[in-house]
């Protein structure tokens, strides 16, 4: 097939490859340089600067954003440290307040306890005094009653009319022995 193609072309008046037709070289070179130079000017003066500008802007923007992010991260770290410091201070303060309150309460409690103890002791002393008074009073009354009973008993049971002095003496002796007991 290739051979027939070649012979067919060879039969043509120009002959051979169109690429070897020297008469077309001049115009091809002229138009090649013309169009290439036009494209070179367009590319270097218009097209590429635009792309360069966009790429640079994007690079700057990304670098700027990264910087901003880094600054913000540092700020966040600082804020966190400050927060933790204030938290620690607050905790220490709270603990101090709690300890103080505890001490105050214990103090108050101890005071109340001692007051109560004193009051109770006083009341107990009063009560004891009252009891003693009542007992003494009862014992005093007991003497007179015992004398009457003794006279009545002596009179009715023994038929003896005992003198007051004897009765008094006997009752005193009995009471003294009871008191002593």
């Amino acid at each position, binding site marked *: *097939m*290739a051979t*027939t*193609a070649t012979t*067919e*072309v060879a039969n*043509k008046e120009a002959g051979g*490859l*169109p*690429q*070897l*037709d020297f*008469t*077309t*070289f*001049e*115009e*091809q*070179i*002229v*138009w*090649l*340089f*013309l*169009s*290439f130079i*036009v*494209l*070179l000017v*367009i*590319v*270097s003066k*218009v*097209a*590429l600067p*635009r*792309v*360069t*500008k*966009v*790429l640079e*802007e*994007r690079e700057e*923007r990304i670098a700027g954003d990264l910087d901003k992010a880094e600054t913000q991260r540092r700020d966040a770290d600082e804020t966190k440290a400050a927060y933790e410091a204030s938290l620690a201070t607050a905790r220490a303060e709270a603990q101090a307040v709690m300890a103080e309150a505890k001490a105050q309460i214990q103090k108050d409690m101890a005071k109340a306890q001692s007051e109560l103890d004193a009051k109770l002791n006083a009341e107990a002393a009063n009560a004891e005094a009252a009891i003693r008074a009542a007992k003494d009073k009862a014992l005093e009354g007991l003497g007179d009653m015992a004398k009457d009973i003794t006279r009545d008993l002596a009179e009715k049971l023994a038929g003896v009319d005992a003198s007051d002095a004897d009765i008094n003496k006997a009752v005193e002796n009995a009471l003294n022995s009871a008191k002593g007991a």
Partner: protein
Amino acid sequence: MAHSPLEQFEIKPLAEFHIAGVDASFTNSSLMMVIVVTLVTLFLTGGMRKSALVPGRWQTMVEMAYEFVANMVKENVGKEGKQYFPFIFTLFMFILGCNLLGMVPYSFTVTSHIVVTFALAATVFVGVTLIGFFKHGLGYLKLFAPSGAPGWLLPLIVVIEIISYLIRPISLSVRLFANMLAGHLMMKIFAGFVISLGSIGVAGYFGAVLPFAFNIFMTGLEILVAFLQAYVFAILSCIYLNDAMHPSH
């Protein structure tokens, strides 16, 4: 066969111009170049019309093209190569545009002509040589005498280095030209098979499936080659430029 596979490469004048004795006729090749320049310009400016901080799809494509070539220049030439970035970028986009536009049916492949690829390669070669001598003076000749080579081998190495240096524009231009020529020739020949087999009759229809399928495969391959050859042309230009910037390495 009514059409020769070579017919696609013919230069057809659309308007004749002669300016100061120079033939500047507007041909189908010139038309394609003008279309490529227009499309590349539209692609680049259209993608950047919003210049958004967060790019859309089109802008992403433009930025990808930019960064692809920018990285190529940075890796192969270094930071000093930045001033040549617009040239390399234009070279890459122009060749890529011509290669891809050539894949459109009924169009013309500008880069399938050796004179075009050679003119581009010669521009790179002459430019690089001038930059080399301008930057380093006669020190640029150190490029031909690699350091660390044994003295008795030096005459031989220098000759080889000079030949390989002078052959650069030829290898650079022939690589692109031959790839484009061969690819488009293959596609046309296999398309011709489809037509001739199809004209035989019913049996031919089935036979035509094979070259048709091959052409689908070839289309994909040629689009890959279009990118690859534009890349190779641009990266080799970068490597030559690097030699001009740092001749003794």
